[in-house]
């Protein structure tokens, strides 16, 4: 036993099983969503409804009630939105792709990936666009012996400057625009670096010493795997 409904599809009256009806209206909703961004979406869906009604009439012949296999058959003929998306229908390029970016400006971070002590000097170097953080370190050390309070400044910076944790932090640190392309590049670079570290370690993989180094180089989650 099945509950039935009376519907009007594309100008034809149908008596339809409840489950078949649910399936049909789900399909029509997907279509509506698919075309919602294109001009004349109402017209497209009502044309499709009319065609589906025609196909149903052909299928039914002299039967009274539309059931699940009928709806499935008709949907197979019409196709899913992703099937006709590739053919003939060009979707407007979505604004989310490509141009989306957050302009953050340059920010000071501690670059803990290139650190000696706390990444303060390397972070400052990145901020001022100095290629090699060694010069910033030299300046700090020289200042410590001449003026004296650079150690204090270092410690203060160590506490108040945030660590560059994410890829977008690392881009903002260098004053690069934070967009999908740059983040992807940043992540690729990091993966390359990581791969290098591993292969370097692999070369002298002997004894406990190098194992400790690997443990240090791997993110915490991967410790258990070793």
């Amino acid at each position, binding site marked *: 036993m099945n509950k039935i409904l009376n519907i009007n599809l594309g100008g034809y009256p149908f008596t339809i099983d409840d489950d078949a009806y649910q399936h049909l209206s789900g399909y029509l909703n997907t279509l509506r969503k698919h075309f919602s961004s294109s001009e004349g979406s109402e017209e*497209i869906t009502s*044309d499709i409804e009319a065609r589906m009604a025609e196909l149903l009439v052909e299928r039914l012949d002299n039967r009274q009630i539309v059931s699940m296999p009928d709806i499935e058959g008709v949907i197979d003929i019409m196709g899913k939105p992703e099937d*006709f998306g590739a*053919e*003939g229908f060009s979707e407007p390029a979505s604004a989310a792709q490509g141009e989306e970016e957050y302009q953050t400006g340059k920010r000071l971070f501690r670059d803990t990936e290139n650190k000696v002590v706390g990444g303060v000097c390397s972070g400052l170097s990145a901020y001022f666009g100095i290629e090699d953080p060694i010069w910033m370190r030299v300046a700090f050390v020289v200042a410590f012996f001449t003026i004296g309070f650079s150690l204090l400044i270092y410690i203060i910076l160590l506490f108040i400057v945030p660590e560059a944790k994410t890829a977008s932090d690392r881009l903002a640190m260098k004053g690069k625009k934070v967009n999908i392309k740059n983040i992807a590049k940043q992540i690729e670079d990091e993966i390359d670096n990581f791969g290098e570290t591993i292969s370097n370690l692999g070369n002298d993989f002997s004894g406990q010493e190098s194992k400790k180094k690997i443990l240090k180089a791997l993110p915490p989650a991967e410790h258990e795997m070793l």
Partner: protein
Amino acid sequence: MKLENTKAQMRKGVLELCILSIIAEKEAYPSDIIGKLKEAELIVVEGTLYPLLTRLKNAGLLHYNWKESRSGPPRKYYHLTDEGQSFLGELQNTWETLVNAVGQTTKNIKS
């Protein structure tokens, strides 16, 4: 590289030309057009046609009239506008050039 994608792209390129040609021959209603396109294996699923028709109509290349039908609600019958006629002419020229060009560049391939 997916073969199916490339095939679909190729079909997509000529689909507009074919639809306009079918309608140019005789005023047509979507189910007629679908029948011919399916016969020629130009479309796989019927849903492809409707957004295309609406797009061509909105571009001013097609126009339709409602006509009564013996078995059911009125149907949309499409015909070409003047603009559609000249558009089709241009497409046919391009198509002929393409056929020649492709024929020439691929004639040495023996399958």
